[in-house]
């Protein structure tokens, strides 16, 4: 073990963690909106809307994230027509390609998490709201959504942790995130164990923070 290398690479890796966190937060925020939208679509009684949302989550949960990011980055880049459109401004940048892939992926999982959370809400709660004369819209926003969020917290916490680890795939499309910089350091020092141990430690620390935050929120919003 080369302790000096571990100490020297730590600040560089910490810098790269900023990129990882940016990727993670951007994809989670966009993904949450996509997830909420598609969860609502899934609950729609119209068969076509319902099936459309189902197919989306089926495709993005049924294929590896690496394949998705490759199709969006390398695949779309090969379509000549696309390169002459406005879309190329966004797709040209590996950063946006990564965020699009991550957001679509986490969106699919989030939609499933939220859908099942909505479905676990006891009908009695909604009926109680109705009997008090509360309009349906208010019931949805003020009763169903808060309960669904509380119900989905443990599963969503898992999803955040999975996504955080998933961002390491950004390095495959040239981004210098935590894994990307770790690989770069290894490419000049040829010592993978030391560098990956430090990088792994940073990932573990992030998991620790996310895990405990979710646990705290779970306790706070526990209504039992």
């Amino acid at each position, binding site marked *: 073990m080369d302790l000096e290398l571990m100490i020297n690479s730590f600040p560089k890796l910490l810098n790269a963690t900023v990129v990882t966190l940016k990727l993670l937060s951007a994809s989670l925020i966009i993904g949450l909106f996509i997830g909420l939208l598609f969860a609502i679509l899934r609950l729609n009684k119209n068969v076509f809307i319902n099936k459309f949302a189902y197919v989306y989550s089926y495709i993005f949960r049924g294929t590896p994230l690496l394949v998705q990011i490759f199709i969006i980055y390398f695949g779309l*880049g090969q379509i000549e027509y696309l390169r002459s459109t406005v879309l190329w401004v966004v797709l040209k940048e590996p950063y946006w390609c990564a965020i699009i892939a991550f957001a679509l992926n986490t969106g699919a999982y989030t939609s499933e998490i939220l859908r099942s959370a909505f479905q676990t809400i006891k009908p009695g709660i909604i009926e109680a709201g109705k009997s008090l004369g509360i309009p349906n819209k208010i019931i949805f926003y003020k009763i169903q959504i808060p309960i669904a969020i509380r119900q989905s917290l443990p599963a969503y916490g898992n999803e955040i942790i999975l996504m955080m680890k998933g961002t390491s795939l950004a390095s495959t499309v040239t981004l210098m995130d935590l894994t990307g910089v770790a690989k770069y350091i*290894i490419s000049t020092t*040829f010592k993978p164990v030391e560098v990956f141990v430090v990088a792994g430690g940073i990932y573990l620390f992030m998991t620790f923070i996310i895990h405990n935050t979710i646990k705290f929120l779970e306790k706070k919003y526990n209504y039992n």
Partner: protein
Amino acid sequence: MNIFKKTIFSVLLSLLVIGNANADKIRIGTEGAYPPWNSKNEAGKLIGFEVELAWSLCRYMGKQCTIVEQDWDGMIPALIMRKFDAIMAGMSITAERQKAISFSQGYADEVASLAVMKGSSLEGLATPAGINLTKPNSDAKKALKTLTTALAGKTVCVQTATIHQNFLDSGDVGKVNVRTYKTQDEVNLDLASGRCDAALAAAVAFSDYAEKSGKPVVLTGPTFSGGAFGNGVGVGIRKDDTELLSAFNKAIDKARKNGDISRIATKWFGFDASM
């Protein structure tokens, strides 16, 4: 109980035999994704200059060999961790790598070059045909200045952990936006897509790609050798493996003398890249 002992004993014995059989074989690591040095055919079989040369060198050493595939970015760590015993993967002999592993004498050499898409503003730079960076003369220094101006603010793509990346990182051509990829194939894809303003790799890697894909990829600027680009391609071997090192050196001597290296090189490169 006796049966158990016998079984355990025979299992251990067979393990020992297998272990010995493996120890006799030289395992050679290659990337299989850097044509014409090494690549794979449609059937997934490893082919290329170095694959054929490896078999030839093994014959001269009188040893059995197996060729192992390994991703480029983990090549040197895998050698050090004994996943195989020698690297033949178009790996140039550089001072940086020599800190970690030993190299045999060089068996082939070819130049690096920038490539752009036809019609790029970087096409047709006013530089000499080739520059050597070991002791750069005034022409070479002038060419580096021309490149520094031309590449300022441009995105140049390279495969990770290569001499090409080292050169761009060295600052010899100023501050360029270096983007690194896991394989040369991905570099080629992004050069064609327009995400890279230019790419830097072995000149043959680009001509091979242009030929196979039909994409208008053209070389530009001078060809590079020496300095950060190292001194030819050699067999990478663990530092403590001096016996294997001298065996490879002797085999390369013989193969060179009999004209095997130039014959195989001409077959794969289209010109004699041997040294």
